[in-house]
């Protein structure tokens, strides 16, 4: 679970940078509207929110690999 802690720390750092760059930034989640600071705070205790962010970050990473595979394939040309 060490790696998960590193990932969470990276997300928290990202949110800190986001808040510095744009103090008005918000994550709108259904009826909730959360500032970067509120998302950071929630991530410390809200396991469901963390699981969600982790899940979809994973999905994005999978997409990146799949996209990369397609690009390699299309750049390889005909034999």
């Amino acid at each position, binding site marked *: 679970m060490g790696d998960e802690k590193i990932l969470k720390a*990276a997300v928290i750092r990202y949110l800190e940078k986001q808040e510095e760059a744009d103090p008005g930034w918000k994550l*709108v989640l*259904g009826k909730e509207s959360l500032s970067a600071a509120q998302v950071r705070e929630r991530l410390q205790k809200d396991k469901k929110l963390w699981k969600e962010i982790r899940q979809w970050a994973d999905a*994005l990473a*999978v997409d*990146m690999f799949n996209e990369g595979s397609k690009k390699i394939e299309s750049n390889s040309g005909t034999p």
Partner: protein
Amino acid sequence: MKAILVRPNFDDATRYTFAFAEEILEWCRQDGIDVVELAEGEAVKSRVEEELKKGADLFIFYDHGDEDCLVGQDEQPVVNLNNCHWLADKEVYTLACLSAKKLGAEVWRQKGRYWGYTEVVGFTTDALPEFKKSFNCGFTYLFIERIPHGTALDKAREVFDKLATTLVSEGKIMAAIYMRKNRDSLVAYNGQEPGSNGNGGCLLGLLKAPVQVVKKLFKR
């Protein structure tokens, strides 16, 4: 084609989605769709039922919802499982959270067609034009280009994917994450049946990328 567009505006989320719906309204008017707008104070059950009774082909709803309802300006359901017979045989286009789960499935059972989301919809304020594009693109495919639901869903999902990739490249990682999440909870009954994901099976549970790769997403 006659449409009813309902757009409450009473909190942070609806303030944004109210604006997203403006584009839909413009498209309707440009394309000759006869549209009745029920905005803010008119976005309540009595007015919605009144207009549905007059007849319509398309019901558009932006924004809050739950598994079994769409929520109006007074924070009460405008349509739920008790009065969704008004949507039988109609097209429904919504970005409301969760509503495709039960309400959408019921509308589909009553021979309606439902474009919506099975999970809570998320978006971030650093990418509002991108989210507007993702939420509205299906409308163009279905009602302007008149593409079948299944094809429209595939095309819309491609839009979500491309936008997510672009957002990552722009360092808008949280936006990309919720773009990706919304993409997977978007459904189009009749393009697919309720309960199927319409995309040939979900690989996300099987394919797990190394955490190091995910971590790099958050480095700016």
